[in-house]
């Protein structure tokens, strides 16, 4: 079981879109190592012949008739937005400098 390093935690935080400062990285890395060491115990519990369970119930597609029903109004959908403009969500720029 590889120990999770501070750099790896920083990389994971980038993937998860969370800014972590140095103090948070110092705090989290050892805690995550301990947790991972603990959960690694299951690696030898089930063999290749055991099918995985992703869900307690068998999942099936659920269909309904294609009938128009009232949904949220634009005002309702936008009601929790941090910023809105012309009945749309206003967001910061989405392209980086290189694009």
């Amino acid at each position: 079981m590889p120990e999770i390093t501070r750099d790896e935690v920083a990389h994971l935080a980038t993937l998860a879109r969370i800014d972590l400062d140095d103090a948070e990285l110092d705090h989290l890395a050892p805690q995550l190592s301990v947790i991972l060491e603990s959960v690694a115990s299951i690696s030898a519990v089930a063999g290749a012949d055991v099918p995985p369970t992703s869900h307690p119930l068998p999942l099936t597609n659920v269909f309904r008739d294609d009938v128009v029903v009232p949904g949220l109004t634009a005002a309702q959908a936008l009601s929790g937005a941090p910023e809105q403009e012309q009945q749309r969500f206003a967001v910061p720029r989405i392209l980086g400098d290189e694009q």
Partner: protein
Amino acid sequence: MAGALADGTTTSVALTQAHLDRIAAVDGAVHAFLHVDAEGALAQAAASDERRSAGSPLHLLDGVPIAVKDVLVTEGLPTTCGSKILEGWIPPYDATVVARLKAAGLPILGKTNMDEFAMGSSTEHSAYGPTHNPWDLDRIPGGSGGGSAAAVASYEAPLALGTDTGGSIRQPGAVTGTVGVKPTYGGVSRYGLVALANSLDQVGPVTRTVLDSALLHELIGGHDPRDSTSADVPLPDLVGAARRGADGDLSGLKVGVIRELAGDGWQPGVMARFTESVDLLVGMGAEVVEVSCPTFVHALATYYLILPAEASSNLAKFDAMRYGLRVLPEGVASPSAEDVMRATRDAGFGDEVKRRIILGTYALSSGYYDAYYGQAQKVRTLITRDFEAAFAQADVLLSPTAPTTAFKLGEKLDDPLSMYLNDLATIPANLSGVPGISVPSGLADEDGLPAGIQILAPALADDRVYRVGAALEAALLDAWGGPLLDKAPDLEGTL
């Protein structure tokens, strides 16, 4: 209360006002609520009284007030999930269970405190401060639904809704002396529940009696076309099962005590109350067998891989774009959406949420997926097989609900592994989807704090947990000479 409303001894407005008064008197110390909606609750209560005086057909719980965990969305009422990232958010729609409460005429007192996004076993991970256990204000009320359990235990609400992903209804029930039920997965709609882990989450009742839970479960349960994971099968007769159970005849019933969920390492006072409860069941005619579920020792590790994996994916929607908090990073002239998202998620999420998102991202990342998440899903199959083998030998399975009584606030906050151990006995049911109830089993000798007994049944056989739970409750009431909560401190007298 339903009886007093029906015979005209009281009114819904009087009942609702009495609970609002109680909240005003004690919630400063307990902090069970994040938001109290006095005006809305009283308006709903007045409407209920009008329906009753007009002679309209009413649901049995019409007019009985209820508290709702803050992870369930409520139209026009704030929903924060105990997180700063949703501070002030007011949803434009109701969760199906909330809509069913409103349709049946239950006034909603407010939203209860919880661990942030339901991640925790102590309600200390709420961004709005911890809830305190009404039995001892220096102790935790369990988690993540500590607010709902504490509201019921402190008489701030007669009924509450919680959600149970790894034990978040049953474990708070055990440590506050209340009844908590995790229904069969798919038995109660999850539409409008802000998902922590889709394959594990289940909404359920928190009450003072088993019959109250059965009434509430029947009200909120049943198929919901808006939830693709909702089981399209009729609910069993839960209220009838609870009433039959209270008669105290369990002859012909086989109860299995799970060897792996009792014994060494468990608090002696918790085990003593558990053994007494098993003896009471035998006295009512049940036959006890010991069953072994060897894979249960791996349930905790399995859960702490599956849950963060699902949670990290679910919480991706908190991106500072469509709702909730938006934080602009300092010192960046023209921040991109990604810069804003990173700064917002750092400021908006607490430590436990960050910990689990990072863990989930790791478990799902390339190279580790098969070793962690894939392996955990296989162990989940083995746990379900253990349940099947055990239910071939017994109609219901028993264990203590939690290994210890309530610990002190702050005691385990910096030790996540130790905190996670609280859910040891409750997690297997979530991994397999089977129903479970926690019934108060008495007070531990060492500390005088409540303990609980957990009763599990096969999927869709929720009526069995009510039958056995009500039988045990009736026998314990006789033994105690009244409800366990009567032995709790008089909060108003001590504040």
